[in-house]
């Protein structure tokens, strides 16, 4: 019956078309979700790529804060933080710490005096298995207000057009305050003399479920001896790592952890804006750095100091940076762990031998 056969093949064709459409829609939704149809989406890959110098990234190393040195020690909690957060690390006691002093540069061989911003990666472990990781820096506020602005800053700084930076500053006036800080703040000749600030806000949750939006800082107990950049440069390209190794071998170095609680209306979502002075501040304990180890084969090398790895009792706030940093840090970590074979070559270069 040719009529029926024709009808049947017509129906088959329609069914095949329907199957193709259904499969195509699912595949298309997947492609959209993956960002393949959205070239303008700010991805962790874009941020990580834009951190690289013109000569390309230092393979095997962190894509930013690439120069650093490991430390271990203890967080001595005095118990005062327990009223703000139920995290076990705020119960009076001692908690093991792993960390990393570092310079905010994508170049692991950068000369110390060429890098304005210094940082600290920190991991405090509690007995209940909870971990608190953080990545702090020494300026009193962040250069820009949003992750998109941070990407635009990186892009503008790589741009050969001299007007690119002017255009960026025009669009992001908050950056002027950072430039002012960078030009006027005194330098120090030691990691031990620098403060390290969370800058981002987090939410502390207390035992009764009450929420407190906070920022926190590690304030050095060492005497701060300001130096000019020129005098600091004379101390040598790797002075900071030599100095901290030497200093800690003579005596443990200490920082007070100070938690600042926001008042209602404070700019909790914008780390480029310092909170007004006079906010309630609680000293919750002391970081004691007891041992320094080279990054190579040191305990901090393969740790991602992701600021969203938080214990029960601490959560992210409306500040958009911790999520963006977590995403970009993961990308950097995935890249550098796949480049392990390149890492020692960089180290040999640092000690004089050519790879």
């Amino acid at each position: 019956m040719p009529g029926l056969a024709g009808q049947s093949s017509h129906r088959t064709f329609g069914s095949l078309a329907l199957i193709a459409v259904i499969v195509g829609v699912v595949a298309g939704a997947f492609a959209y979700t993956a960002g393949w149809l959205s070239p303008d989406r700010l991805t962790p890959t874009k941020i990580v790529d834009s951190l690289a110098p013109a000569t390309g990234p230092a393979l095997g190393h962190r894509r930013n804060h690439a120069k650093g040195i490991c430390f271990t020690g203890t967080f001595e909690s005095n118990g005062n933080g327990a009223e703000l957060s139920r995290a076990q690390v705020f119960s009076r006691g001692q908690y093991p710490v792993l960390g990393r002093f570092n310079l905010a540069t994508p170049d692991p061989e950068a000369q110390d005096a060429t890098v304005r911003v210094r940082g600290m990666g920190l991991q405090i472990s509690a007995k209940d298995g909870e971990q608190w990781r953080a990545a702090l820096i020494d300026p009193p506020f962040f250069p820009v207000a949003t992750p998109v602005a941070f990407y635009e800053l990186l892009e503008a700084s790589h741009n050969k057009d001299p007007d690119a930076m002017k255009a960026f500053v025009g669009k992001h006036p908050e950056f002027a305050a950072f430039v002012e800080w960078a030009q006027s703040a005194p330098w120090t000749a030691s990691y031990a003399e620098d403060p390290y600030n969370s800058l981002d806000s987090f939410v502390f949750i207390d035992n009764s479920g009450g929420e407190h939006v906070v920022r926190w800082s590690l304030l050095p107990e060492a005497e701060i001896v300001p130096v000019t950049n020129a005098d600091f440069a004379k101390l040598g390209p790797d002075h900071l790592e030599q100095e901290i190794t030497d200093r800690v071998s003579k005596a443990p170095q200490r920082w007070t952890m100070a938690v600042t609680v926001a008042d209602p209306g404070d700019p909790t979502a914008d780390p480029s804006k310092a909170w007004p002075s006079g906010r309630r501040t609680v000293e919750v304990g002391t970081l004691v750095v007891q041992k320094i180890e080279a990054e190579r084969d040191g305990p901090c090398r393969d740790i991602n100091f992701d600021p969203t790895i938080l214990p029960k009792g601490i959560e992210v706030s409306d500040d958009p940076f911790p999520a963006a940093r977590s995403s970009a840090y993961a990308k950097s970590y995935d890249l550098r762990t796949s480049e392990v074979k390149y890492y020692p070559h960089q180290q040999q270069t640092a000690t004089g031998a050519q790879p």
Partner: protein
Amino acid sequence: MNSAGMRFTVLQRLLHWLMAVCILAMLFIGVGMVSTVMPKYVVLLATHKTLGIAILVLALVRLGVRARYGSPPLPADLPVPMKLAARLSHYALYAIMIGMPLIGWAMMSAGAYPVVLYGSIHLPAILPRSASLHALLWNAHFYLAFAFFALILLHLAAALFHALIRRDGVFESMAPVPSHDETAPVE
């Protein structure tokens, strides 16, 4: 059509459709989270870990149920290459449903990340810390995810092919509710 022996058991169908939703969500969350720096990244990552372990548990339960209750036979007139493709693709689906969560868990362990699920459930590390193992497992997790998605598209296309073109009862054997054809008297 007698339902006994021709359809998967209610438990099997329930597990299939529950896992279908979980796995599709999982794959979309996976590609979505690695392409964003927005605040939702933190939530997506936590969901990805929790859902991944849920899928691992469901897949193991399902494997046990399958061993106990078996599956309806494929139509006798199904061409041999299609029978082979059906069998192999199902082995692959089971392997990947169980393998992907384990690879993800092992990858987090090798990367020295704490593995924390919703409800502050801590899972132990299942591998020692190792950058090179992390890289190996990351690559496996990444490429297998796309293989998994391709396999699911193939599975979907084959199911629809059975439902719309061959109309041989294969789709109905796993359909969430009995279809009209099936409830109608066949005599």
